[in-house]
């Protein structure tokens, strides 16, 4: 088990390294001049050249990449006009735009995105798998029909439409909730939850129909297996057939897909973040990409990539724990 985890983590590291290298290469090829953008519209060529030298943009791309890797492992010292700015070990460098430490920016932005992803996953697991279970077991009931309709509508509607609808309904018209502003969990857990409620709902709904369909088909498939028939022939009730025997097999693909989706939320939840004004890393990424702020882009890609590969490792371990036939190696 330990050996397996070490191997998987090494693999994950390799994937993230390749990812960062690709981002560097893409930036090198892409048109546009980060120095000009960083310097501002009224800079003259000398000033731009100065900024370019300061940002080490004159170095060959592999040297820049090497410095980036060095910074990650050992930290980096930057000479500013006044003195030396030290950037601690997992150093993603300084933003081209405002010389802020990228690591600090990430630490500041990550909690909002993580809050969003966790809550949205809870929504799609509850609503999606719940609807799926209902539609597998009591097809045609009124609850099942309403829920199926709701999940389909949620998935079919772009998040900036459904988000707007939710805001209008709950904040403006019914006035049950305040217009969301992000309150960190550590400051006030209750306010955090109230303010995150609508973003969770919007993003969770978006994913829920997929989970409803997956749960339904997976459960129906498991219920048709021979071992279910065995226990039915020994007088087990339908409830225990589902609860004890079928569910365990049926959740395996749901776990796997959830893990992949959870990881990708870190990069893909940007629309929801923007809709609800959440200071998350998705927004950071969009802004950094438009201004060619390479250190920030690489840092965000590193974080999202890490989230995706780690979530997949967790899913595989969970799958093996649920099904003893699965051998991790």
């Amino acid at each position, binding site marked *: 088990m330990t050996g397996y985890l070490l191997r998987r983590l090494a693999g994950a590291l390799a994937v993230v390294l390749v990812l960062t290298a690709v981002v560097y290469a893409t930036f090198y090829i892409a048109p546009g001049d980060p120095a000009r953008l960083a310097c501002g519209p009224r800079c003259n060529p000398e000033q731009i050249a100065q900024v370019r030298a300061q940002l080490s943009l004159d170095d060959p791309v592999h040297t820049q990449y090497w410095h980036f890797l060095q910074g990650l492992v050992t930290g980096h010292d930057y000479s500013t006009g006044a003195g030396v700015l030290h950037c601690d070990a997992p150093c993603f460098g300084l933003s081209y735009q405002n010389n802020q430490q990228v690591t600090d920016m990430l630490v500041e932005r990550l909690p909002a995105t993580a809050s969003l992803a966790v809550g949205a996953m809870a929504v799609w697991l509850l609503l999606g798998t719940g609807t799926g279970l209902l539609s597998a077991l009591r097809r045609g009931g009124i609850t099942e029909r309403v829920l199926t309709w709701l999940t389909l509508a949620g998935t079919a509607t772009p998040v900036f439409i459904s988000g707007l609808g939710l805001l209008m309904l709950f904040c403006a018209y019914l006035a049950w909730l305040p217009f969301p502003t992000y309150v960190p969990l550590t400051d006030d857990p209750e306010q955090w939850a109230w303010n995150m409620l609508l973003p969770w709902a919007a993003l969770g709904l978006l994913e829920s129909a997929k989970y409803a369909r997956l749960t339904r088909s997976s459960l129906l498939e498991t219920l048709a297996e*021979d*071992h279910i028939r*065995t226990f*039915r*022939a020994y*007088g*087990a009730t339908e409830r225990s057939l589902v609860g004890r*025997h079928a569910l*365990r097999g049926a959740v395996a693909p749901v776990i796997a897909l959830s893990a992949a989706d959870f990881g990708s939320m870190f990069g893909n939840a940007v629309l929801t973040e923007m809709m609800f004004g959440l200071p998350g890393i998705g927004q950071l990424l969009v802004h950094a990409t438009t201004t060619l702020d390479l250190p920030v882009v690489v840092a965000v890609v590193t974080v999202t990539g890490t989230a995706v590969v780690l979530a997949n490792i967790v899913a595989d371990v969970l799958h093996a724990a649920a099904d*003893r036939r699965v051998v991790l190696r």
Partner: protein
Amino acid sequence: MTPQPLVAVDGLSVAFPAGPGPEAGSHPTAGLVRAVDDLSFTLRPGAALGIVGESGSGKSTAAYALLGLHRGTGAHVTGSVRVAGHDVQAADDAALRRLRGGTAAMVFQDPLSSLDPYRAVGDQIAEVHRLHHRGASRRAARARAAEVLDRVGIPDAARRARLRPHEFSGGMRQRALIAMALACAPRLLVADEPTTALDVTVQDQILGLLRELREENGMGLILVTHDLGVAADSVDELLVMKDGRAVEHGPVRDVLGAPREPYSRELLAAVPRITERRQRPAGADADGEVLLEATALRREFGRGKQTVTAVEGTSLTVRAGETVGIVGESGSGKTTLGRMLVRLLEPTGGELYYRGRSIGGLKERELRAFRSELQMVFQDPVSSLNPRRSIGESIADPLRAAGKLGEAQIVGRVRELLERVGLDPAAYHRYPHEFSGGQRQRVGIARALAPEPKLIVCDEPVSALDVTTQAQVVRLLGELQRDLGIALVFIAHDLAVVRQVSDRLVVMRGGRIVEEGPADDVYERPRHAYTQALLAAVPTLERPATTAGHGPAA
């Protein structure tokens, strides 16, 4: 006449909605397929009845009705079924659940898929026990599970009870399913093909166990099987079914010894007999040139510590026009050997010569020249044909791969082949699901014949088929060999079938050849102890017939 029979079935009919969707069932009779039609029989307490028939004869459907397992499936069940005095049709759900397991327990086919893969075998048995003994504690139920596992002959039962089904062998899983039935102490055991997935020696043990348990507990037994040999050894009465109807019903000696109905006679005649010598087709020559020669072939799977040697040091010669039979139990390496012979698998060690040329280590590109001459027919004609392509296209594949013929010639040749294997040439555009098992196997044979091979390895070509279909396919293979002079390697676990087709026989065990020789010698004078044990375990029809004083059926 006993006062109350254990099972009384009267005028039972089961019909399933035909075609896709349950809508077809909206009319009471239209669009229904009758699986069981007006079936009646009774079983005295402690007696044993065998229900035999080919696949699709309705025998399993009838067995399911005994436990009310058709309820809620959309099947239309009419007639009356009484088990131990309970009216199965009229019982409410709770009463039916008490009956299932508590009064009548079912032992299913395919012991791997019939157990919950996620939970320990002992826990599953304990759960079933607690369903019928409400007061039993978890601990007591676990103890009971270990007890019944021990009773069915699982060694070290208390420890093994904690293992998952995949950690059991096939025979142990089947024992565990029987233990599950025992855990509730039922009065009736309904066994649906309980030994079909097992090797002959294990089958022999399981049938012996069922006999012992009946004597010990006075349980009634209904044994559903397609194998007349299995039924002959284990039951008192036999019910022959065809197309949902009872064709013949009587004491097992009478039905097997002097069948009255033509269908019973036909079924009996088709059963391959281990004493039956091969009829060599006239004009065939067994001393042809050496086609294939394997020396000390070895094949390993896995790497490092997990390496398993599937085949070890096997040497074999196949001559043109002869049939070499390979028998052995599951895991003996016979399929691995067969696949190496046609180079679907690369040998890890040893030499393989085809017409004097070493092909053991050739790369895929170099092998291409030999591919068409070495073909394979697979066991499962369902999964070895692409369900989304017409059978004509499937047969044409090897011809297209060879790239020698034009499109029109290929279509012509495929039609010829279809006719050659006894199918309608117009079936070219039909899909595998439209054919029966036997017809599909004919398609598989036509596909193997397409590139005009010199040798075909048939891996369990008839084990998924009914006896009558089996006989037809075996006959077809014999004709093809006679007409085309093909060499056959015939792999099977059924010793009687192998005898009918083989000139020479190879017996494998644990990846090695333990005995080899002319088929008649090996069957009549087996030298190796393992071959003797294998042959002794084969169930035969003759035993009850001879005790009854009748000669074997014609």
